């Protein structure tokens, strides 16, 4: 029982990371109808952005682990990733907007391969130790809690789940209560009508990529707090899982991406803990296939009809 509860907590923390990455997939798909294959690698770049900026930024707060410093590292990694995301869109995807989606997808695969092999060339293939920006430790529970006191929740896990929640709320506000957010929603509903109504497509697309990439960058740093070993290929697996999460929740749907991320995280933890880890990846893909076959619009998405 306690073990099961513990697995749920583990899954929740991992799921938050997937949720943050999944948002980028889902937002881009919402407005552009294409899968940004390179998104998982932006998450990797977020971790490395944190890795390179942390020593300087943490120095401002005495050099040791501190919450203020960590917040600054998080923000800087998010900004760097936002810029990278916008650049990728400008250089690689924008010129292809009128082309078949297949062409864009291939380009995205190319960008992904470039970021991975380029990452190995620039950062080195060896895993790097992410600096300790927060002193991660288990939270002690009072013994009076009975068997619940044997549960282990770490500061890192609480921070990851907490930051994810905060970021999701901010995103919700932006999407629902700002003009840009409204333009974004209009675009995903009907691009043609939206641009006729004066929505600036280029600006909104840049903005979408910036937000999505910033979320991935945040995920990169948050994951490194818990798992301080980063390498240039870390985005492949996380990216695929997050994509499945986005589809599960209903691609194009932001709350769906968050929900899908959490579910995939939980599923993984339970499969690993109780079944067999070798079946984890095949099972996640099986979930994806089943969702696409029986409810292609995902858990929270609205069904869409192919128009002639």
């Amino acid at each position: 029982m306690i073990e099961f509860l513990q697995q749920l907590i583990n899954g929740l923390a991992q799921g938050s990371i997937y949720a943050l990455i999944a948002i980028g997939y889902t937002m881009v798909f919402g407005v552009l109808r294409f899968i940004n294959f390179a998104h998982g690698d932006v998450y990797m770049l977020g971790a490395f952005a944190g890795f390179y900026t942390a020593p300087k930024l943490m120095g401002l707060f005495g050099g040791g682990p501190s919450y203020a410093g960590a917040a600054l590292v998080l923000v800087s990694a998010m900004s760097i990733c936002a810029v990278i995301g916008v650049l990728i869109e400008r250089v690689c995807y924008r010129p292809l907007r009128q082309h078949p989606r297949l062409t864009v997808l291939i380009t995205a695969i190319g960008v992904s391969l470039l970021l991975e092999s380029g990452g190995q060339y620039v950062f080195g293939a060896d895993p790097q130790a992410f600096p300790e920006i927060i002193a991660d430790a288990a939270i002690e529970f009072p013994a009076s809690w009975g068997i619940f006191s044997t549960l282990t929740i770490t500061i890192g896990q609480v921070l990851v789940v907490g930051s994810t929640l905060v970021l999701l709320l901010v995103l919700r506000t932006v999407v629902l209560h700002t003009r840009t957010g409204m333009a974004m929603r209009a675009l995903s509903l009907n691009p043609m009508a939206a641009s006729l109504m004066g929505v600036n497509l280029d600006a909104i697309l840049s903005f979408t990529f910036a937000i999505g990439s910033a979320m991935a960058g945040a995920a990169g740093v948050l994951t490194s707090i818990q798992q301080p070993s980063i390498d240039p290929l870390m985005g492949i697996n996380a990216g695929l899982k997050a994509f499945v999460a986005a589809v599960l929740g209903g691609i194009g749907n932001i709350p769906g991406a968050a929900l899908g991320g959490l579910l995939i995280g939980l599923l993984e933890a339970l499969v690993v803990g109780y079944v067999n880890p070798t079946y984890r990846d095949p099972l996640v893909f099986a979930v994806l296939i089943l969702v696409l076959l029986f409810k292609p619009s995902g858990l929270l998405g609205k069904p869409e009809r192919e128009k002639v």
Partner: protein
Amino acid sequence: MRRLNPKILLILAVVLAAVANVFSSSINPYYYDILITIGINIILAVSLNLVIGYTGQFSLGHAGFMAVGAYFSAWVTLNFGFVLGATVPATTTVYVLALASGGLVAAATGLLVGVPSLRLRGDYLAIVTLGFSEIIKGVIQNAEPLGAQRGLGGIVQHTDIFWTFTGVALAVYGILALVHSTYGSGFLAVRDDEIAAEAMGINTTKYKVLAFVIGAFFAGLAGGLYAHFKQFIHPEGFNFLKSVDIVVMVILGGMGSTAGVCLAAVILTILPELLRAVSDYPWLPEPVRNLADNRMILYSVLLIVLMLNRPQGLFGKLNFGSRKS
């Protein structure tokens, strides 16, 4: 020029392969390896072209079908290699049967993937086929009789120029004959406008599944040739990167252009080997050699630049024969 009868060309190609095979012992083994790899890649690219180029169904899981063919045929020759005796004709018969059955099992897998994927298109289909090939890899990684994570070794080398290029001739001829037949124009119709095709009474479902099944059959055949050439196969040899490799051949060659796709398969097999030679020249400046050493970076940049400038492929219009596809 009058168009030659394709059937005569098919026979000619097989005879040529047989003749070339006689001289195989005098070919430098490295070039021999590249030549066989070219043949295998042509089969893979041409068969994927049927799915992507002619039928417009984007598949990212071709390496999965290749894996099925490779493992099944290797399993057959490893377990039943000598049931007909140890003579050359006997083992060759088993080898050919293994190749064929590997292709058929892959085709069955293609059916398994094709039918449920029918409801999907574009990016969704790409991801689902990618998912299926990962599942295939996962199953192999857990299958003890197939060597699981250790890989499967001890496969006898049977594949030579004759069998490889007979396979190439069959794949090229088979697929060209199919799409150029009256029956086969259904593939193009599905690609060009699925809804219109449906309205014209074309059974789009049948064509899509058929493309998957035939594509998978030849991918399985290529897998069998591969396994009996390399003599050792490993699940990681059939990963996402391998699928991307084949897709790039199709894109570079120009979707729906069989000749272009063949040419792309040749170029993309030889190019990395040429880069190898570049990095061997000590007098070249360091950065050039470094770049040549990092072929993956070069490859991805090429891919992006190509997509941005010639999304229709390098040889979009190139084709065997004069008939339009």
